[in-house]
């Protein structure tokens, strides 16, 4: 009997590996619409969608892109994702994008927005300055204005007038997408033997290039197919993986993590698709609703200031919610936010008595042996403690 998920995962794998963004080009040809790229962590994709364009998540070049030109732009102590992103850009692979959005993640991505302004003068380039002040009257007002400006630019690009109704429809579609993704994550945590993480990851990555409606349907199909699997759970260690919110780990690394005896029950990869934890309300002023959603119930991540709760509270909640037995920090080399966050999370985990281990990678890392040894030992030790 063939594995019921094979076909879907294969489709996602093809999308993942296609660094020419054929799916985007085809969509543009088919619909005559335009496409706008966005970098990781979070972007209000609803606005792009409402303006009749395809939002395209750009998460670097991954393990399969050879860097020929990108290294000329960055010193050796800067992380890998901007090199591969520049490589994609200057080799024309991103020509299919009519604009590019750079969320406020860190100094490197912020400066990358300026580089983009210099290199691609004929494209829409916009830096998304998210508020770090979270009251409606201050940060909310500022952010609503940011969103309004962005929407004007997008609308000018696509020549589509975005009515509140239109934007509400887009928000509704993304709400639905966030709900199926939440279900996908819950299902994995409940039955990790049926939803291998590398499959989940590929399904998530497909959200970067597929129209939201198609992606929602794809997740549903995947969940239905995975449910048909008849597999027994292994005695693996249940872990939450954190630190990889921007530059993504190579697939092989994810597979190595699983093969070493870990079930990943939560992670922060392709975070933008799950950044908002609840539905965005479909109120009278959708921009205000989007702003409120950003200010309110979201994930905690290193690039977002958290004024209220203690550092690491969100991570510990996730450990509890998903019944994890440990945490694997898996952060890109030279990633200031992730690596500076790490000691604080470690302290929080130590206080909570949650075991952890940590590892650095680059998106094009091609050695997994040490990593596998390390996570394998970690999984074994968790099992030993657990038994004791």
């Amino acid at each position, binding site marked *: 009997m063939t594995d019921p998920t094979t076909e879907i995962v294969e489709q996602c794998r093809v999308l993942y590996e296609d660094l020419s963004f054929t799916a985007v080009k085809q969509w543009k040809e088919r619909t005559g619409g335009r496409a706008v790229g966005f970098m990781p962590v979070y972007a209000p994709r609803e606005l792009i969608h409402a303006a009749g364009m395809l939002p395209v998540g750009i998460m670097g070049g991954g393990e399969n892109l050879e860097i*020929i030109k990108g290294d000329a732009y960055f010193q050796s102590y800067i992380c890998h994702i901007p090199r591969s992103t520049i490589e994609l850009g200057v080799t024309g692979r991103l020509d299919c994008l009519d604009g590019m959005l750079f969320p406020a993640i860190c100094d490197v991505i912020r400066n990358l927005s300026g580089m983009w302004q210099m290199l691609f003068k004929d494209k829409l380039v916009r830096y998304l300055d998210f508020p770090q002040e979270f009251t409606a009257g201050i940060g909310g007002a500022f952010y609503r204005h940011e969103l309004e400006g962005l929407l004007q630019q997008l609308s000018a690009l696509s020549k589509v007038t975005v009515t509140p109704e239109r934007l509400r429809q887009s928000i509704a579609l993304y709400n639905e997408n966030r709900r199926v993704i939440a279900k996908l994550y819950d299902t994995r945590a409940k039955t990790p033997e049926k939803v291998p993480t590398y499959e989940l990851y590929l399904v998530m990555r497909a959200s970067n290039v597929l129209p939201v409606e198609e992606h929602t349907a794809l997740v549903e199909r995947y969940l239905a197919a995975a449910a048909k699997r008849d597999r027994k759970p292994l005695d693996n260690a249940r872990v939450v993986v954190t630190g990889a919110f921007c530059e993504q780990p190579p697939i092989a690394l994810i597979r190595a993590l699983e093969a070493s005896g870990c079930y990943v029950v939560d992670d922060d990869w392709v975070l933008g698709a799950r950044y908002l934890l609840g539905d965005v309300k479909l109120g009278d002023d959708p921009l205000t609703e989007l702003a409120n959603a950003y200010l309110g119930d979201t994930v905690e991540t290193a690039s977002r200031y958290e004024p209220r709760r203690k550092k690491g509270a969100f991570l510990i909640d996730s450990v509890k919610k998903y019944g994890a037995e440990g945490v694997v920090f898996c952060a890109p080399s030279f990633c200031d936010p992730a690596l500076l966050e790490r000691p604080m999370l470690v302290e929080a985990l130590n206080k909570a008595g949650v075991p952890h281990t940590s590892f650095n990678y680059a998106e094009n890392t091609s050695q997994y042996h040490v990593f596998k040894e390390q996570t394998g030992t970690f999984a074994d030790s968790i099992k030993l403690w657990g038994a004791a």
Partner: protein
Amino acid sequence: MDAYVGIDLGSTTTKAVFLDEHEKLLGFGITNSRSDYDIACQIAREEAEINSRFAILRRELRSQVAGDGHEQLIAWLFQKYRLAQHSRQLEALAQACRKAVDLLPNAAHRPPTHAVLDQILTEMEREAVGLFTPGAVARSDFFRDVAASSFLHLAEKKAGDDAKLLDRLIGTYDKSILQVEAKSYTNAFADYIRFAADAVRRMPEFEAHGEAITRAVANTIAIEFRVLNTIGTGYGRQRLPFPKEQIRSEILCHGLGAHFMFPKTRTVLDIGGQDTKAIQVDENGIVTNFQMNDRCAAGCGRYLGYIADEMNVGLHELGPLAMKSRKQVKINSTCTVFAGAELRERLALGERREDMLAGLHRAIILRAMSLLARSGGVVSEFTFTGGVAKNQAATDALRKLIAENYGEMTINISPDSIFTGAIGAALFAKRDRKGDLIGVDLKALQKPVKPTAQEQR
């Protein structure tokens, strides 16, 4: 004869070049760099002078010997000259070794060690004659390498199963070679060439040319080089005993040297042992922009040396092995620390060594491509220099990437590219000559070496 000298003190080799009043090359010299920079510098300079004299000798002989006969003749003269020089170093080595054995802490060890040492040294002397013949494949141009390989080979043979004796012999050699290396044995041109001339005149095939040889040799010896200015450059240039005005950055020297060798050069790439340089020059060879690798030596010649060690093959075998690759493997790490781990892991996974090596060469060239891009790109003509330019797998990867990224263009690689920096320095010496520098030279370095007993005979 007036001459201008350029010296390039590199991390592995030290090079010197002599240039005449018309900016024509007179000769090159090279030696291995060593802890005593002054000696390395002196020897390279003397080698360059010898090389210049041989060029003159060749011209003399060509005018005096009909047909192609002079080529064979000069080849023999050169080999016999090398033999004379080698013998003198061997003599010094023998003396040093004997002294070292006399100082062995355990007196009982001395006589048996002496006995074996004598056998080895006699054998080495005998072997030497065979080493210096035209067409013989030289294991190395440097005495240290030639002597070490003979000595170790013979010591192993003679010591047999006596591991302790072998240890003593090797210890003796290690101490002694340092003393030999601390002196110059090159500055006795007249002595060596007379020895060579005598030997060659006695050879039946050159009997007819006896007089021509004597005349040509005498004319060559009579030439005196008046060095009007010397400029030093290279990695270790700050340690040269020169006034500041006589030191130039290797970037400038490389640019000018490349322009001298290939006047249409606009972009120069140099991959040496310690660093990689991408240089743009104008139509006069003046540097307009440059970039060097960042502070780690990843992607430089040193990296290849490390990989060779890691794979347990010789440095010179890497290129040929990589040429046998059948598929391209992408190596992501040019960090010397990580590359080793990546290599071992992939070999363990069954990747072919040849394919891995091809990937490594490409990785090095990709780093160089980044530096080229940062310095302003690649403009025809493009000249590639440095030790890595001798490695065909590297040059092939470079040609391919240049063509893909900058279009087809002329790529110059000179077999003498190792002298690029020294040539540039010599050109600066000629062009920068200021009255007050005349006569400022390596006087302090010219410590004469006493002739050995064999030569006095």
